[in-house]
């Protein structure tokens, strides 16, 4: 189970006291072991990586960086990256945006919040985009919108299916309405791809929210999700502020969306590669 307070930040230092005082940090070499972010069990890092970054104890899904995701999904050495040098500019001269971009580049080792390209999944060629939670929480600005749009245009021209992995906090407010317009821009490109009879599969991963949910994440022919992923338009914290009450357990998780009829299937991480390949083969 994911922490219900995933998006909740402590209002002050005191709020964290209960949590931290109960938990005494064990004395272990940090490069070998980590404590699970969900169940706090000590797990061998190696074991975690072998298990596709899922906690062997509580089955908590760690978020994957785009390169980790690609390594898990596509055939070895088949990925050819597109537009890898497109970088965001501070078009509106928004305060602190330049430093945020720099920090995001440093921590994620990527130039923007989405990686796009073409690859093969078990021999099946397709276009792929993988969003990145480490880069400003996968927020969509002009460059993310542009890269996704170019990928769909490329796929339309070259008659390729598109497989997209989403993770996003929504539109990137530092780019104002221009980021909002990316929702329209990407939707137009997805629609064109659709209208030529091509397949688009989205895989929603934790968390997919805001403007990405309200555009290309929900526009797939087939919408899959990883277990326990938060999938929302308005995130839980925003809703709790609006309605001034706590949300029920499991609200806005993949399982909830499946029950409400908004996704096609929940697919476990270890089955994703085979599932995608099987779907692609039948199109």
């Amino acid at each position, binding site marked *: 189970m994911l922490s219900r307070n995933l998006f909740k930040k402590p209002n002050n230092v005191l709020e964290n006291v209960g949590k931290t005082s109960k938990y005494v940090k064990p004395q272990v070499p940090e490069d070998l072991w980590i404590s699970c972010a969900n169940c706090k069990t000590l797990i061998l890092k190696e074991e975690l990586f072998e298990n596709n970054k899922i906690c062997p104890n509580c089955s908590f899904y760690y978020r994957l960086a785009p390169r980790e995701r690609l390594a898990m999904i596509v055939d070895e050495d088949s990925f050819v990256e597109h537009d890898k040098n497109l970088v965001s500019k501070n*078009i*509106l001269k*928004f*305060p*602190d945006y330049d430093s945020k971009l720099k920090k995001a580049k440093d921590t994620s080792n990527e130039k923007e919040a989405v990686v796009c390209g073409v690859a093969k999944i078990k021999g099946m060629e397709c276009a792929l985009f993988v969003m990145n939670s480490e880069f400003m929480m996968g927020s969509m*600005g*002009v460059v993310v*919108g*542009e890269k996704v*749009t170019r990928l769909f245009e490329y796929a339309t021209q070259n008659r390729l299916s598109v497989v997209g992995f989403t993770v996003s906090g929504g*539109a990137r*407010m530092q*780019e*104002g*309405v*221009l*980021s*909002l*317009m*990316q*929702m*329209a*821009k990407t*939707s*137009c*490109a*997805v*629609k*064109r791809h*659709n*209208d030529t009879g091509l397949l688009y599969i989205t895989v929603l991963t934790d968390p997919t929210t*805001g*403007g990405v*949910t*309200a*555009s*290309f*994440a*929900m*526009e797939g022919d087939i919408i899959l999700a990883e277990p326990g992923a938060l*999938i*929302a*338009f*308005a995130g839980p914290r*925003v*809703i709790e502020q*609006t*309605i001034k009450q706590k*949300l029920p357990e499991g*609200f*806005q998780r993949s399982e909830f969306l499946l029950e*409400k*009829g*908004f996704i096609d299937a929940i697919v476990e991480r270890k089955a994703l590669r085979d599932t995608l390949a099987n779907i692609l083969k039948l199109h």
Partner: protein
Amino acid sequence: MAANTAYDKVLAARSNERPTARKYIEGIFDWFMEFHGDRRYGDDKAVIGGLASLYGFPVTVIGLERGTNIKDRVERNFGCAHPEGYRKALRLMKQAEKFHRPVITFIDTAGAYRGIDAEERGQGQAIAENLYEMATLKTPIIAVLIGEGGSGGALALAVADEIWMLENSVFSVISPEGCASILWKDPKYAREAASCLRLTASDLFSLGVIDRVIKENPDMSSTIRMLKKRLRVATERKLQMPINDLIEQRYRKFRRQGL
């Protein structure tokens, strides 16, 4: 009316004194009949829409309606639509496509509603579907922002051939208060946030996001007269275009956003 800073414009756009969508619809069209319901779940009163006559020509009109008095505002959820509101709008747009009559939308909302029921019924999916379908709707679409254009909830009616803004309306990816809470951990810096967000009609015109700023006159009837004339000219011109050219032009309009 003299709104100087960006935040003053935001406050003016939200003001209860400001005319809502229904006022414009009643003023502009010779005849209007409201059609209800999304045929799937219910009728969302935050969205009004139906068939109207513009100088005798048929048009489909859709508006986000905030309401005019306290009871009305509560009933209309202050103009914050649920998924069924966006689905009603899409139903009416598809109807317009069938009869090849132009769609005119009036946008005035703080944003799509953020609540449990809205999420349960797929707020994100409903907005996404509107963007997706409007991209290739085979009839002209003109969107007019008349008050507050709040994020995805406003965009869901704005994937149009032309986006116009009344001089004192605003259009933003996030409310200035929300932006200030995230950036400076305090909504009281909303004034600063508003100027950073570049959300006024003149800002958005210079950024190439919108196509026209409509000058507002303190006397509303002259603003309405101007809108009425411009809508007639624009819809006539768009109707004369071959439909594939219109859709290609719409694609290119959104394609160049931000570049």
